[in-house]
């Protein structure tokens, strides 16, 4: 048996490993020697103040832009110099914080693009799969609607739908719970739990911490592009450092 390339601490194989990733835009550092790994099927939560570099970290993982330094490994391969398209084929899918729908196409066609291009499905099989995912994300009634005319909530669902239609091994979710009602939020948490249960690894950036806590196995905190804390969710949230930097509520709350 070939030994796993990136054994993580608990012995599971890492699906993703960041190795001292750094990136800056002029004076702004968005990633500062960022290292961590995600195990197969793990759900990792990411929090941090606005502008800390969370979305940028996703951009580095998906290949939207390349790092100045450091490497990214996915599923046993060094993907640092791989194009965004190839990474998608390899099994990384994301939802965008600012939704990026194909506005001139219908919801169903948006889903079809993910299914045919990224997941490589064909014809009838692709169509059926998209219908299934749309049902799961409750967008089926909107299947024939142009994506450009969806409401914010529906756009966020579309983001999720597309990511799922790509049949990913690693799903990156960027603030999908913001602005949801409690009921919607519960439904979302359930959906993500289901996805997680099906064996997909997840990294979830979220400011709605209680939703995050309900799903993730582990939490990391990022500030100024640096990982400043990592560990068991409950513990992390209670650390005074996180309270100050993230919640900004100092000791008074």
């Amino acid at each position, binding site marked *: 048996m070939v030994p796993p390339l990136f054994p993580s601490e608990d012995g599971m194989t890492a699906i993703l490993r960041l190795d001292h990733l750094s990136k800056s835009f002029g004076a702004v550092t968005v990633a500062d020697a960022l290292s961590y790994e995600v195990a197969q099927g793990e759900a990792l939560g990411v929090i941090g103040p606005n502008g800390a570099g969370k979305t940028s970290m996703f951009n580095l993982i*998906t*290949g*939207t832009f390349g790092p100045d330094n450091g490497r990214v490994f996915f599923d046993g391969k060094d993907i640092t110099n791989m*194009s*965004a*398209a*190839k990474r*998608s*084929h390899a099994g990384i*899918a*994301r939802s*965008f914080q600012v939704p*990026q*729908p*194909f*506005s*001139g*196409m*219908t919801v*169903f*066609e948006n889903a*079809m*693009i*993910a299914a*045919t*291009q*990224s997941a490589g499905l*064909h014809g009838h099989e692709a*169509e059926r799969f998209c*219908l*299934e995912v749309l*049902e799961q994300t409750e967008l*089926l*009634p909107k*299947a*024939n609607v142009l994506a450009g005319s969806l409401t914010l909530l529906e756009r966020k669902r579309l983001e999720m739908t*597309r990511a799922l239609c*790509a049949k990913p091994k690693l799903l990156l979710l960027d603030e999908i719970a913001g602005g949801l009602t409690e009921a919607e939020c519960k439904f979302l948490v359930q959906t993500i739990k289901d996805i997680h249960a099906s064996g997909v690894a997840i990294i979830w950036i979220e400011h709605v911490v209680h939703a995050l806590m309900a799903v993730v196995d582990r939490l990391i905190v990022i500030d100024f592009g640096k990982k400043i804390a990592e560990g068991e969710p409950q513990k992390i949230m209670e650390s005074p450092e996180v309270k100050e930097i993230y919640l900004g509520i100092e000791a008074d709350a």
Partner: protein
Amino acid sequence: MSLQNYSVTRSSKAARVAAVLGALCVILLISAPWWAGRAEMRLLGELFLYLALASLWNLMAGYAGLVSVGQQAFVGFGGYMLFALTMFGGLHPFAAIALAGVLGALVSVPVAVLIFRLRGAYFAIGTWVIAEVFRLGFAQVSALGGGSGSSLPMAIVKSLASKRDMREALSYWLALGAAVLVVTCVYLFLRSRQGLALTAIRDNELAAKSLGIDIWRTKFTVYVVTSALTAMIGALIFLQKLRISPDAAFSVNDWTAFVIFIVVIGGIGTIEGPIIGTLVFFALRETLADLGTIYLIVLGIVAIVVMLKAPKGIWGLIRTRFDLQLFPLGYRVIAPKDDKEA
């Protein structure tokens, strides 16, 4: 409500009717040599070639976002290849037209690698420079007449068919065939997986990239295929013109400006647009061409007004009004009857 009852369709009633009417139209047009005069056939032949050029330009600009004002490079290249291959290679004109397409594809590869470095409007200018380089380059080839150009020897023209009537019918059918071929190819391409990817790129490059679409390669493919077909159309055009010269072969007005106007007026980014645009363009031309320059001024004004007031062109207006699509590209989910909300 069960998912099994949902179905997905890619056609519509309007489209089926249009397909039947279209087929009838094509059959009628095939028979034109038996009922139309020489002048009409020449006009129709020209119309078909413009339709083909317009559909190709629309694929590039309207779908792949490659706004080129240098397509004359490939029109002229194809024309020159026809002359060179028949005169020096001794090929039959048909073989030369096909080979012109292959060669067009080959030269478009390095061209694409170079000008894909430019974005937006600068890409447009880059393509124009390339066309100028082609023009000046061919002007240096003295075997093809240099700057003065060359006539197609009568022997080659006669090798098509010895009788004039037959030659004229043949070149008419070639033009018709080219138009039908190009429109069909564009349609099938856009319905394919690649076509879906192309439309996605047009809507949102960032999202397309992250969904596994290789943007550079998709655009590159479109560029190469378009160039190849454009070169073949170019060869056909100069088979009709009989004489080629750098200025005529690489004319930006004739092979690009008019084509752009056709697409804009008809409706950019739709398959129907170029067809409507070509009809409107030729209608304008036949009624106003005697006014000479005034006609071109009118054309320019029409294009500007359309661009500002109805950026989706005539077909765009029709489509928003009647929700009509003659060449259905999209998917429609059909909900089960009892499921009213879909």
